[in-house]
């Protein structure tokens, strides 16, 4: 047993002379911030190899034990876990975390891009703060959401981020036109636009008159219940019912009005609908 101990002592002594048995110790940063320089202090003597392994970095360099190892800002751009390894004969490792720096970008997703007016829970937005190196900022931040239309504020709310995300959901405005949706955090503003369009037609009414070719029917100017003009292209369906049966004509709204020529001779009842909305019904007599 004593011979074995003596043998080990001799080996260690011999190795220490060649500088590879030097006891290396080192200390990683307690807290590091993305994109900021940092350093690792080492103890011991002799030469060693330093490795830095982390997200986006895999560095290897020769070091002198007992001196500080500088970590460049470039090496610590990505938030996450890093592993520092110092090898000098044997290898030792320590891990440390790099956290995101202050918010520099606000990613803001808003839905939908087109929305009918006066619809509950129709507009939603999600915001994520990121630092200048695109790391998600997980520290709680207050994000202000604001909805404005035609220079008037419709809705605003301050939401604190939770797990790096803040979100809202609200009703659309009352009038058609562009809706500005802005997320702001300090000096950062991220605007988005939502086009508000008229909702379903309201009080859909038609008039009709005999012509030599049949019956010409047309709607009154079509608005939704808030008075917004229903967009051109919206389909209006006219249904004619007479002695010979029933027929339908689909006509798009043009300049706020939909028109159709129905070729029928006898007395006819004509009704109108657009989507799920029904309008009035008219009766037109037979061709004189």
């Amino acid at each position, binding site marked *: 047993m004593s011979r074995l101990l003596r043998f080990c002592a001799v080996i260690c002594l011999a190795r220490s002379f060649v500088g590879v048995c030097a006891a290396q110790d080192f200390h990683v940063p307690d807290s590091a911030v993305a994109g900021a320089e940092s350093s690792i202090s080492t103890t011991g003597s002799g030469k060693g190899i330093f490795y830095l*392994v982390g*997200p*986006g*970095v895999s560095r290897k360099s020769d070091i002198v034990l007992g001196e500080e190892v500088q970590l460049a800002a470039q090496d610590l751009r*990505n938030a996450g*876990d890093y592993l520092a390894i110092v090898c000098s004969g044997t290898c030792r490792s320590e891990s440390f975390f790099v956290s995101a720096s202050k918010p520099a970008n606000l990613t803001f997703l808003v839905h939908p891009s087109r929305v009918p007016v006066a619809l509950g829970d129709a507009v*939603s937005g999600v915001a994520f703060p990121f630092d200048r190196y695109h790391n998600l900022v*997980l520290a709680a931040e207050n994000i202000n959401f604001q909805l404005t239309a035609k220079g008037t504020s419709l809705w605003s709310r301050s939401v604190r981020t939770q*797990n790096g995300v803040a979100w809202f959901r609200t009703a659309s405005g009352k009038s058609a036109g562009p809706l500005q949706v802005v997320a702001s955090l300090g000096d950062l503003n991220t605007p988005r636009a939502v086009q508000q369009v008229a909702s379903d037609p309201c009080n859909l009414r038609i008039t009709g008159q005999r012509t030599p070719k049949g019956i010409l029917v047309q709607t009154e100017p079509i608005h939704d219940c808030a008075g917004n003009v229903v967009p051109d292209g919206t389909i209006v369906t006219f249904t004619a019912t007479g002695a010979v049966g029933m027929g339908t004509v689909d006509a798009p709204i043009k300049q706020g009005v939909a028109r159709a020529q129905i070729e029928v001779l006898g007395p006819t009842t004509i009704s109108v609908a657009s989507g799920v909305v029904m309008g009035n019904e008219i009766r037109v007599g037979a061709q004189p």
Partner: protein
Amino acid sequence: MIGTTTIRTVSGEFPIRFAVAVITLCVLLFSPVLKLHAADAGVQVQLDVKNAGPRAVETLTERGILRDYRFAWTSMAQALESNTVDPLAGAFSGEAMQWLRQTVASQQKSGLSRRYLDQSHRLEVVFYAPEGDVMELHDTAEYQLQIRDGDTPIHDEHVTVRYVVLMTPGADRWVVRQLQAVPQF
């Protein structure tokens, strides 16, 4: 003459069939698809969706997340072990793809490589956007991390790492856009 021809045909076909069988076997044994499945089998993923909100996670989405997150880690492990970016395609995008590319390039330069073995991931959905276009997850991952300098192992440790993950739906799968380790959730 006919008999001779027949003998030639039979004796010629046998080596061809044998060669085809051998080649097929080799292709099957060494195909990347099989390797992927084999590697995939080493990645265990559990998903908890009960705290998801404001949108509930649909069953099909749940399956998709499980499949695609497992695929992402399989791809990442392959890329960082073999120091090639090819396996990353389709599984990552955005910032996650960016730093993984940087890592591969940095490893190629320094001669290092990493292995993620015996992976086990406990995933929890903590946020699912109202319109379903982004999901945030917390992953408590456990694996054996091995780091090599060339052929020399310099680090071998069983670790538990917590990741904040952002995934978004792509054309036919969910992709990892952010994969950021944190000290705690």
